[in-house]
């Protein structure tokens, strides 16, 4: 009899779907959101014992900390170079595989494979390649150049970029391939009939349809660029050469010294920066890609 009041069972569906979300929501609250609130609180008190409110002084202290500044600068520089590179190169790979070349699916497999190779497994090969007397330097010397000790010089970031691209291009390429396949064919055909060349088509039509994917790839690559710490750690350990000292190194060392105030301030600051960057990207995508969305 109850059913007659609620013929479609909407209420039941709503209750069921709320119950389904509940376990996840509880876990997220307990392990992420509530503790993050505590982290924000910790970032504004002087120490966990006296709990005196000190406003932003932990943040100001952070900005006068040389280790933090160096780590932020290195991480920022790495991301600023590697993320756009990852975007352009993965798009190039996707466009390349769109053409009429033999063995397409094999190439897709090859380009995607580094994603599924554990970082730790290939570390030794990177060492062989980038060692002071390693393969890359031998090739450079063959051509009369001078090798550098990659892991112990200011060129170290270059090899980090290589390792990052190697691992991440495949994933981005798949995203671009799907987006390219989703562009309405009729529009391209009309453009072709009107005499638009491939390059014109790419920059004036395809790129606009790709803009949501471009934003997503930018965000994703940025997140992944912070995971480069894994490679750096596996290659050089806790205290790498100055230029390879990443934010995660700073966090690890601050954890070791149990300085929760500094840690909390760094985490909150990092979160804020990320949110601002993501917001800017999403808003600019909204403006740029508005006319192609239906």
């Amino acid at each position, binding site marked *: 009899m109850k059913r007659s009041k609620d013929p479609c069972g909407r209420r039941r569906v709503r209750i069921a779907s709320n119950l389904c979300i509940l376990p996840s929501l509880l876990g997220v609250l307990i392990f992420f959101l509530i503790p993050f609130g505590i982290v924000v609180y910790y970032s504004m008190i002087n120490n966990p014992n006296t709990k005196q409110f000190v406003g932003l002084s932990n943040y100001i202290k952070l900005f006068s900390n040389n280790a933090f500044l160096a780590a932020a600068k290195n991480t920022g520089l790495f991301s600023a170079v590697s993320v756009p590179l990852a975007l352009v190169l993965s798009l190039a790979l996707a466009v390349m595989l769109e053409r009429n070349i*033999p063995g397409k699916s094999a190439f897709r497999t090859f380009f995607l494979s580094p994603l599924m190779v554990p970082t730790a497994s*290939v570390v030794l*090969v990177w060492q062989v390649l980038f060692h002071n007397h390693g393969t890359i330097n031998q090739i450079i010397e063959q051509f009369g150049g001078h090798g550098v000790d990659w892991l112990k010089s200011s060129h170290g970031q270059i090899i980090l970029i290589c390792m990052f691209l*190697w691992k991440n291009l495949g994933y981005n390429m798949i995203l671009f391939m799907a987006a390219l396949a989703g562009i309405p064919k009729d529009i391209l055909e009309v453009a072709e009939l009107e005499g638009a060349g491939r390059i014109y088509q790419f920059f004036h039509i395809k790129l606009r349809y790709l803009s949501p994917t471009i934003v997503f790839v930018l965000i994703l690559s940025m997140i992944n660029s912070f995971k480069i710490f*894994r490679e750096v750690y596996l290659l050089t350990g806790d205290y790498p050469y100055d230029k390879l000292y990443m934010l995660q190194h700073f966090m690890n060392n601050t954890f070791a010294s149990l300085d929760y105030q500094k840690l*909390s301030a760094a985490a909150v600051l990092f979160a804020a920066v990320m949110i601002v960057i993501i917001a800017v990207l999403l808003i600019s995508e909204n403006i740029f890609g508005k006319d192609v969305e239906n």
Partner: protein
Amino acid sequence: MTRLKRRRAGDAVCTVVAILAAFLFLMPTVLTIANSFMTSSEIAANYGAMFSNMTDDKKVFISENVNLKFIPDKVTLDQYKAVLLKSPDYLMKFWNSVILTVPITFFQLLVAVFASYGFARSKGKIKAIIFFAYIILMLMPYQVTLVPNFLVAEFIKSTITNIFYPNGEIPNGLANMRWAIILPGIFSPFSIFLLTKAMKRIPVAYTEAARLDGAGELQILFRIYLPLCRGALVSVAMLVFIDFWNMVEQPLILMKDANYHPLSVFLSQINTGDVGLAFAVGVVYMVPTILMFLYGEDDLVEGITYSGGIKG
């Protein structure tokens, strides 16, 4: 006519570039596998220079240069024998990786299947806000989430110790901190994001029809939704697995006892010790993920495609 010719030439150039790129992409993996069949003396002869720098006092100089070799002089399984039979340390660390990664992957998927169903099945303002919060959380790097994780772990550990073990002797299961990595891993929202997007593509007509036939919510989830997003499920499982199989950040911060570190962290310490084994250990470590990739590549590609785009 000239246009067609130009296109053909372009295709040829692209093929060459693709072959070169494929070489670069495959080389590190292939090299690791090929070198794992070398004898340890051959490795010492070729790569000895790399490691003699580290221990200056006992220089066993063989060659000034590091020689990159694709094909071993003599193919042998000695490295594998040593890894699998003679050095229990590596197997232990491999087991540490398994016991962290498998529960995280399984339970993260379990939680996510239900939650995504909840998000995809009915809409609402509060749900939209929660989902948005999940996306933001998903986009936070470890450098942000590890601090809250650490605080919770410390809190749980000290609370349980105070209540149940006031004399301070805590059992191994609590002290090894595996749970401190596994629990937040289970609730990490990445798979919810991807699965919800896959489930939202399922036409409403399917569920309406099932309801008319008298199917309950659980039946709809398990009989209709799950079979229809099988590809996305496989893909999420692979992506979650490889992400945690690669973990370095969490164990370094949450686990003080290096005995419980997974192989992904331990492999970095191998350099100084038995170099002869390192390639074989690397290969053993990539076997599970490579197998997954070979079996599930199409599903993986499908799942990655779903993940594109933050909105809708």
